[in-house]
């Protein structure tokens, strides 16, 4: 679907709720260089949400939705958890899967879209929590990577089952005591980024969402690589401030503390050789496009 097709019928325009009118007037569908800097000057693809005040997940959602390179032709697949409370307010096609089933759904969806729309770029992005990705859905997650399915998997890692009161998850750090895990975690945090690399992902990132420009970069890279080469995986730390005993305004600092070089969310990336080549080509094209735009602007002002 192109933005040209997203128009409200003139005779019923006045009865449409204002958020839909704004989406048509000032959302960034179809804008080639869309990114987090559009936030504040254009209509975001997320309306109100039901996450807790100050939840870093809401920041992550805003940055990701602002950074998707092709939102009008993207389908997101969610799973059970806090994220599933947000998707109803997101203006990008999305599917809610059974708990843990998200990568299996996305596999079929991506293949079906390729058959149905052979001439069009259709991106599929999975966005699920750590419980869905590494515990309940690990089978589906890994199998999709083994099969080299061409979509991006994003894991919002808050290191526990936040939505149900703080049970232990595979991505919880060793020794952590949660409300519903009073003994403390007995084994190490599952090293899913390393597993992703070994399972065939071409682009693997482990980071927090404290820096919007970084989130924008990794989202764009992940989607482009998944589109052309194969599976990509992003593990983003979105701490549950309630479950780790922080206040609403402390989420950002928690992420900054956790991304220090010796901490568990220090920025880590793995890029396969074909993916490196693709990124270099994309960077060159981008440079060319910007130079041409600059030249055009110069001619217009002369």
């Amino acid at each position, binding site marked *: 679907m192109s933005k040209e*097709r*997203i*128009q*409200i*019928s*003139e*005779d*019923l325009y006045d*009865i*449409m*709720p204002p958020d*839909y009118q704004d989406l048509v007037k000032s959302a960034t569908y179809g804008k080639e260089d869309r990114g987090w800097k559009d936030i504040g000057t254009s209509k975001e693809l997320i309306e109100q949400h*039901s996450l807790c005040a100050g939840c870093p997940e809401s920041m992550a959602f805003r940055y990701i939705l602002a950074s998707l390179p092709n939102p009008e032709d993207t389908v997101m697949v969610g799973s059970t958890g806090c994220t599933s*409370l947000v*998707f*109803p*307010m*997101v203006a990008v096609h999305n599917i809610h899967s059974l708990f843990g089933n998200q990568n299996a759904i996305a596999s079929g969806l991506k293949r079906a879209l390729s058959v149905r729309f052979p001439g069009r770029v259709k991106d599929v992005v999975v966005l699920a929590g750590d419980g869905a990705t590494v515990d309940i859905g690990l089978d589906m997650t890994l199998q999709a990577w083994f099969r080299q399915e061409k979509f991006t998997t994003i894991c919002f890692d808050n290191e526990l089952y936040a939505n149900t009161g703080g049970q232990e998850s595979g991505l919880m750090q060793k020794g952590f005591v949660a409300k519903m895990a009073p003994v403390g975690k007995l084994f190490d945090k599952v090293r899913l980024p390393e597993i992703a690399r070994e399972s065939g992902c071409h682009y693997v990132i482990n980071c927090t969402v404290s820096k919007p420009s970084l989130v924008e970069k990794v989202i764009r890279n992940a989607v482009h690589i998944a589109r052309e080469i194969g599976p990509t995986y992003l593990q983003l730390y979105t701490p549950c401030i309630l479950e780790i005993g922080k206040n609403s305004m402390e989420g950002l600092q928690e992420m900054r503390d956790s991304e220090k070089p010796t901490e568990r969310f220090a920025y880590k990336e793995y890029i396969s050789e074909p993916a490196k080549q693709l990124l270099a080509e994309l960077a060159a094209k981008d440079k060319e496009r910007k130079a041409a735009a600059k030249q055009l602007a110069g001619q217009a002002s002369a």
Partner: protein
Amino acid sequence: MSDYRVLPGPEHFLPPAAASMGICLPNPGEAHINGVIAPEEKAYEEAARQFLMAKVPTIFPGPLVLWAWNEKAAKKATAVRHLFNTLVECVQPGQKPMLIPMPDYRPKYPKINPEVEINPNHPNLTIWHNRIDCCMFIGVHCHQANLSLKIIRGGTSCYTIAMCAQAGHEDAMLSFRDASVEKIMKLADTVKRLKGTVQPRLASAKNGVSS
């Protein structure tokens, strides 16, 4: 033929799908009223009568007419607006016609604003809030329309009309099929023709809507 009748509710928390109770869809040129197949002409009269009787007759346009996907959709939107304007002209003081959109099918948790929109996953909220006692769905995809119509029948006493572009809806109290601009305009003409001949149920409307 089934003895079951598709009547205004509240039927109960989980009303059966009318199809499972033996209600059949009309053939081309026909409609159904309360689950009984009837000539389309009779359905126009009955739909118009229900609109004119209602305290809050309401049209719920769905995504297939709200969004200008193509020229046909835009023309249907124009016809829907004409039908609404006709209702406004033809009702008596005290009746309050409404035009409330269903822009898409997202569940929209934690809440929707029932004053300005209806959602197929909890349509009863909009109906209760606005005390709607007769409504017409148009331009809503079949699955979502069936879902909404069942919820409305289950929890409210609202009379439901489906102006369906496909084969009709068993779960509506009255259903047209093969909706077109001409059919919407014909319904508007029938409303105009019956103006003044139908007594609105203003006194009983307050008790008519279940909440």
